[in-house]
Every structure is written in structure tokens, then in C-alpha cells.
């Protein structure tokens, strides 16, 4: 199977957006407003935090915010020198700063980030652990959710298989589970029985 035809290619996986129950999007925004637009999306690896943060950008822009997006990860655990001070000079109440990967910051760096973004109208972060900001939503996954995603992605090939233990083996990390299915469909990993 060519990479471009693999139903679990990255672009196809990324087209699957965060699944909120009917009517919950409005409630989520109302809750964010109640938290004065300083809140955290919390959840373990591969639970959809980044996806949800990205999905919230458009409604936040519609609310009148200028959204600035920052990202940290295990490979990039610090902001570039001067980044926060330059950002701080531009912020006002119309700005909302999204930080994906806030758990990468140590205690001191987190306090500096909060200080630098104090003038922003809002700050929305993702984090593996609660406590940095009030929790807006806790992202969770389930075998049923994984199965629904697999069926949506694999339908065009007519070959739908969600290994029974796939969810458990990856400890609920949907991203890693889907990456394994990429390898299975590519023929670079034998399917597990």
C-alpha cells in the first residue's frame, strides 16, 4: 500500500476533530467565559487536547479575540529567547494566548509565562496534569471512541479492524494506537491477533 493511500496517514488522522456531544460546544465556551478565559484543557497523551485547542480557535475568533498560538513539547521545552517579552509587548484585552504543552514548563518558567501574559484577555492551555489553571475540560478516551475513529478512517478501504486489545496496549493513547494501525496497513507491522 502506498503511503498516500494508507487510511491512517497523518493528514487523514488529523482531519478527525474532537468529538463533543451535541450542544456541549456552547456550554464549553460558556464555562470558559465563567472562568474569565483562563483555563486548562487537561488529559493524558493522545487524548485530543491539541485537537480541541485547535478546534476552539475559530469560535474564539468569532467572539472577537485575536488568538496567538504557542506550542511546547518534549523536544522543545522552552520558548525561544525573547519570545515571551516580544509577545507581552503586544498583548491587550482582545488577545487570547493558546499554549499547547504547558506541562513542559517548570515552576519558574510557568510563573514567568503567567506574568508575561497577564495583560491578555485570556490564556487557554493544554496540560497533562490539572492545577496550572482551572480545568475547562478533561479529555478522556475509550475503546468505543477509538473504534469509531478507526471505522471512519478505514471505511474507504472496506477493511475495518480494530484489534480488541489496541486501546489497552497503548493505554488509551489514540495517537499511538492509530500510528500502529498505519504500520499494519502499510505492511510494516504484522497485525496482532
Amino acid at each position: 500500500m502506498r503511503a498516500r493511500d494508507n487510511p491512517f496517514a497523518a493528514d487523514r488522522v488529523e482531519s478527525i476533530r474532537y468529538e463533543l456531544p451535541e450542544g456541549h460546544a456552547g456550554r464549553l465556551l460558556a464555562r470558559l467565559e465563567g472562568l474569565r478565559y483562563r483555563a486548562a484543557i487537561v488529559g493524558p497523551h493522545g487524548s485530543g487536547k491539541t485537537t480541541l485547542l485547535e478546534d476552539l480557535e475559530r469560535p474564539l475568533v468569532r467572539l472577537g479575540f485575536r488568538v496567538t498560538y504557542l506550542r511546547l513539547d518534549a523536544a522543545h521545552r522552552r520558548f525561544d529567547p525573547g519570545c515571551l517579552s516580544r509577545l507581552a509587548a503586544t498583548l491587550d484585552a482582545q488577545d487570547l494566548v493558546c499554549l499547547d504543552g504547558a506541562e513542559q514548563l517548570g515552576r519558574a518558567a510557568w510563573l514567568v509565562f503567567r506574568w508575561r501574559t497577564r495583560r491578555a484577555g485570556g490564556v487557554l492551555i493544554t496540560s497533562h496534569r490539572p492545577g496550572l489553571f482551572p480545568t475547562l475540560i478533561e479529555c478522556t478516551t475509550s475503546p468505543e471512541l477509538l473504534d469509531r475513529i478507526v471505522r471512519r478512517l478505514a471505511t474507504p478501504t472496506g477493511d475495518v479492524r480494530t484489534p480488541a486489545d489496541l486501546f489497552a496496549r497503548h493505554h488509551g493513547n489514540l495517537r499511538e494506537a492509530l500510528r500502529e494501525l498505519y504500520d499494519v496497513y502499510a505492511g510494516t507491522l504484522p497485525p496482532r491477533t
Partner: protein
Amino acid sequence: MTGLHIELADGRTAFKPGEPIAGRVSWDVNGATSAEVRLFWYTRGKGTEDVGLVDTVAFPNPQAAEQRTFQFTLPEAPFSFSGKLISIIWAIELIVEPGSSVERREIVVSPTGREVVVAHEGA
């Protein structure tokens, strides 16, 4: 009503590295404010998409409905390629604003005129 079209000279869809690509684009977009055609490659596969923008032709003073011609010269690399982990895909894209109307036409770039396919690739 919006209608974007890309026609390549002689109906070709396969080219050799270094060859020129000529064609014609047309659009019908109310209040068109900008129009340009881009030559680029992008990846598909296990990793995050990568994009290489090779060249752009911007059309000044676009009308709501019109045709324009363009010409690019392909670089020597990369070739159109598919393995198990990554595909490299070449394309020509017409973008007309407002509304970010887009029309994309895939092409093949390789010495043989066909995508290079690697069947055996380790994980």
C-alpha cells in the same frame, strides 16, 4: 458562483525534472481581489505533512471572470515518489481570493514519467 480550472498544455500530467510546465487557469469568482497559481510538492504518510513551495505566479488586477496563462520550470528534484512510509506528491494549485477558493491539479515529476514506487521499505 465560483469556478476554478487548471488546464495544462497538451493535456500533459507527467513531466521530467527540469522541464517547463505551461498552462492556463480560469476562474469565475465574484469580486476577485487576488489570484495566483503555485507549483509545489507535499508529503503524505506516517509523519506530519511537509510542503515545498517551488514557485508562484501572481496575476495582477484579476477580474471576476477571466483566463490567464502561466509557466513554471520544474527543479531537478524531488521526484514523485511513494513508499510505505511517505509519498511525495507534486501539484499545481490556483488560489483566488476572497473566500480562498482553491483548485488543485496533481502532476507526476520523474525521469520516467511515472511515480517512483518503492515496494519494500522497512518500518
